[in-house]
């Protein structure tokens, strides 16, 4: 696919296969287009208004940019976690239920909703910590808890794919470890695509790795392979820290 911001072309003929149930990491220097690619998979790029794309992105064999696909269903099925934790200024409980309430097809009673909240929070290993303060504002939680909550709020709409954009860059090392552990926990249940600046993190917490440069995919291989024996010269230069 190709993508333009106004007159500036950010992605060039990107061609990528991501495997289900695995954690795939995208690495590359600043401005190489990895965040752009990630954001176009959730179609959140469109809200800027001046973005133009050609080509297709297929998830589960369906083109999310097809005429028949609606951005809203795409976003429902493909969850997105942002760089800075951005819980909505609502209670913890309402944050978890936000997406669910947008997309439910019937009304739920509060017991059912409690069930949904507990399940989602348990999955992100947050339940024990916040079960007594479900009514407090989510913005008062610690950053780590906020980021986990941002992951939790995606789960009730049963997405197949989770996108994470530098999800740990605002967190301290301990919180980063906790969130990485969580990602590993979710592996297998969801396909996960993360963007990271941090090569050590890509190496620790992913099955496959994609290296991007100047809007193009340079290399895509299993993480172990990429870090041990990269095929391309640029990849090895970047990994060894010669530029970027």
């Amino acid at each position, binding site marked *: 696919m190709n993508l333009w911001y106004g007159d500036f072309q950010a992605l060039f003929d990107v061609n990528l296969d991501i495997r289900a149930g695995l954690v795939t990491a995208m690495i590359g220097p600043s401005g190489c287009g990895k965040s752009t690619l990630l954001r176009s998979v*959730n179609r*959140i790029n469109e*809200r800027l*208004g001046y973005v133009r794309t050609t080509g297709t992105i297929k998830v589960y064999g369906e083109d999310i940019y097809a005429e028949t696909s609606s*951005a*809203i*269903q*795409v*976003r*429902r099925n493909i*969850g*997105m976690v*942002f760089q*800075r934790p*951005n*819980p*909505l*200024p*609502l209670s913890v409980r309402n944050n978890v239920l*936000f*997406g669910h309430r*947008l*997309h439910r097809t019937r009304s739920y009673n509060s017991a059912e909703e409690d069930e949904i909240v507990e399940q989602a929070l348990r999955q992100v290993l947050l339940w024990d910590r916040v079960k007594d303060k479900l009514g407090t504002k989510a*913005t*008062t939680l610690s950053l780590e808890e906020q980021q986990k909550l*941002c992951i939790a*709020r*995606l789960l009730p*709409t049963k997405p197949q794919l989770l996108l994470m954009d530098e999800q740990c860059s605002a967190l301290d090392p301990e919180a980063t470890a906790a969130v990485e552990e969580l990602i590993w926990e979710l592996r297998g249940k969801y396909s996960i695509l993360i963007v990271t600046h941090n090569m050590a993190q890509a190496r620790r917490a992913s099955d496959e790795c994609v290296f991007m*440069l*100047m809007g193009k995919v340079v290399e895509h291989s299993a993480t172990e392979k990429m870090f041990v024996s990269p095929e391309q*010269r*640029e990849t090895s*230069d970047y990994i060894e820290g*010669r*530029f970027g």
Partner: protein
Amino acid sequence: MKKKSTLTPTPRPQLVQTHEPAWADALDRRDRAWALDLAARLLVLVGGISAILFIGAIFLFIMTEGLDFMWHRMELSSLLFGSRWEPTVDPPEYGALPLIMGTVWITAVAMIIGVPLAFAAAVYVGEFARGRQREWLKIGIEILAAIPSVVWGVIGLYVMAPLIKSTFGVQIGLNVLNAGIILGLMAAPIIATIAEDALKAVPEGYREAAESLGATRWQVIWKVVLPHARPGLSAAVLLGVGRAFGETIAVLMASGHRLMAPESVFDSAATLTATIAAELGEAAVGSDHYQVLFVLGLLLFLITFSVNLIADRIVRGRKAAPAPGAADQPSRRVLAGVLGILLGGAGVHRFILGDRFGGFLRLFLTINTFGAAAVIGLIEGILYLTKSDEAFVQTYQVNKKSWF
């Protein structure tokens, strides 16, 4: 993109020898630029303080003009609750209740008309409109805001009045409805502008988060933006009330200026502001009538002052970072502050803070100084309102500071 390391060793630069005295001279540079800087600093400080001086001077001058009357011949209750305003009859009656009622009626009608219009415009312009359409709508709102009040008055007098007469089949076209519509349209652009600012202040991250979960634009507005902007929106309404309440000329021209409390929207009415404007020219300088008009002005000043202060605190309180643990004790700051300003003489603000002794003490002082000690309450009220919520709770509710 294949880059080799380009670092080549460079020779170390030689350290330049410096002499101690030269350094000291260079550091103590009390030259012309330094003096100019100092002068400029003092000059702009004067400018900065001028706003405080003026607001203080307004209070002081209006109070001194009406002081003699307030001191010797005024009974607050008969001024506020007397139902006859007949300054030219002998003996004159100064009961401002009809004027207060007129003000309340007209302001209420203005808000009923202006607030929905303004909020809809703010949401549309701030959240839906894009590009050129947005610019044009904003310019339209600016034009509406720029129309001078006397022109609005002419419209009320010559356009609205016949229109109301023929539409509703009433005898008088200059009435509460007319003035309310005019004031509503005058206040709407102000409310809309402040409300749009409040919407704009909602962080982009919240919208992005909600949209990334698949919310439509309207769902984002309804579920995230509006609830989060609520304090700003209420501040906008408050400032709109302040504006409608203080408007003078347009109301004088459109309301019919009848000195009796209106009983329906089709009655003519008079407001506090219009009465001052209409009668000040006729009242002999220094007479009771003249002084009582200044007392009304003081009342207007105090009410708009509190309204603005509250609106400002709401807007600014929002911007400050939420301090954890501040919610331990609900802050009574705004309530106590406003009561201090309005009813400080009776010590009501101290009763609110649980200081019964202090309340009675102030009441006692006020009675024994024929009202002069009410100034204490006024000052305390202003001090309360300028504090932050946390500081207030700490100072007055936890530590129970008893004076000022």
